[in-house]
């Protein structure tokens, strides 16, 4: 660490962001063939406090926790930190159709189904 550097800057790419009081949720992405399926673990979150925003190449999820979680001695920072929300931005491995995306939230697990953009074409054999 160089002199004068704020140690918080070292912790914005480790799955949490102390400045924004947010953490990345656990996430799994699978390719089901015709679509991508993303699940995320969002404990202590209400459905109405989740924002899911898609483009044809990205998925962004933000969710506010019901309460603030405070850790008195956090990791190598060794000071009190608070987390109030989840945030995750994913660049998808393939282009999807944002108009056909569906999602549901049950038992703390967010599921987002992202149908791939269809670029196939039937070829006639002469």
């Amino acid at each position: 660490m160089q002199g004068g550097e704020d140690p918080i800057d070292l912790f914005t790419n480790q799955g949490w962001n102390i400045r924004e009081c947010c953490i990345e949720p656990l996430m799994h992405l699978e390719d089901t063939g015709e679509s991508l399926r993303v699940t995320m673990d969002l404990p202590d979150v209400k459905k109405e406090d989740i924002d899911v925003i898609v483009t044809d190449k990205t998925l962004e999820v933000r969710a506010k926790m019901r309460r603030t979680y405070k850790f008195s001695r956090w990791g190598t920072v060794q000071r009190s930190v608070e987390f109030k929300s989840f945030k995750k931005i994913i660049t998808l491995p393939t282009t999807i159709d944002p108009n056909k995306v569906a999602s549901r939230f049950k038992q703390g697990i967010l599921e987002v189904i992202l149908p791939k953009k269809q670029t196939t074409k039937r070829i006639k054999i002469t």
Partner: protein
Amino acid sequence: MSSEIKVVEVKRIPQKANIILGLPDAGLVGSIAATHVIEEMKLNEVGFLESKLFPPIVVVHEHTPKSPIRIYGEKNLFVLVSEMPISPYLVQPLADSLVSWLKKKNPQLVVSLGGISRQDRVEIDNPNVYALPSDESILKMLSSLNISIFEEGLLVGSYGVILKACRLEGIPAVYLMAESHLRYPDPGAAASALEVVNKLINTNISTKALKEKSEEIKIKARDLMKRTDYTMNEMQKLQEQEIPMMYR
């Protein structure tokens, strides 16, 4: 005892005790359940595992450096809990050392707590628990308690290896698998597993606090789950969802 991993008893662990194993695995069921038992019953640390094979991890609790794998307990109940996933190269040495130690302790019963992953876990309100016994007498006991038996399949990871070794050494053991998430911490599954533990070893471990704090546990367990997920991928844990080629 395999010399690669040592079980160090800071306080003597008696013979004929019940021993619960809580290793990081599917849904962190074992880790969550074991930690809950230790907290609920206010068990003190009585031992730990050490080895040059372990990654260079030291856990610090209350300004004291500790081994990531520790044993807590008193009287006739002891709990082994790990704060680090068991990498593939550690599985056999750990099983060898643990089983060698268990043989000397002549336990009443060894109970491994784990998860069996269900893709549709969100649809399940009360996870079922399957049990795999080390011998026929344990099987009879499980059947008399109406506990579902794990009849056929593949098991990947430490627990299966430990149970097989217990069977070979004549150590009474059972592997309890609660229906769980694979990659997300699952306190609900841990609670189901503990309810079966109570039936098996006649304890009265309350799961009320576990259920009440489940959201907080999921957040705190996030990073251990990430590391465990990585280790499960290394071991190809998804093989458990395959249909075995042979049925005998």
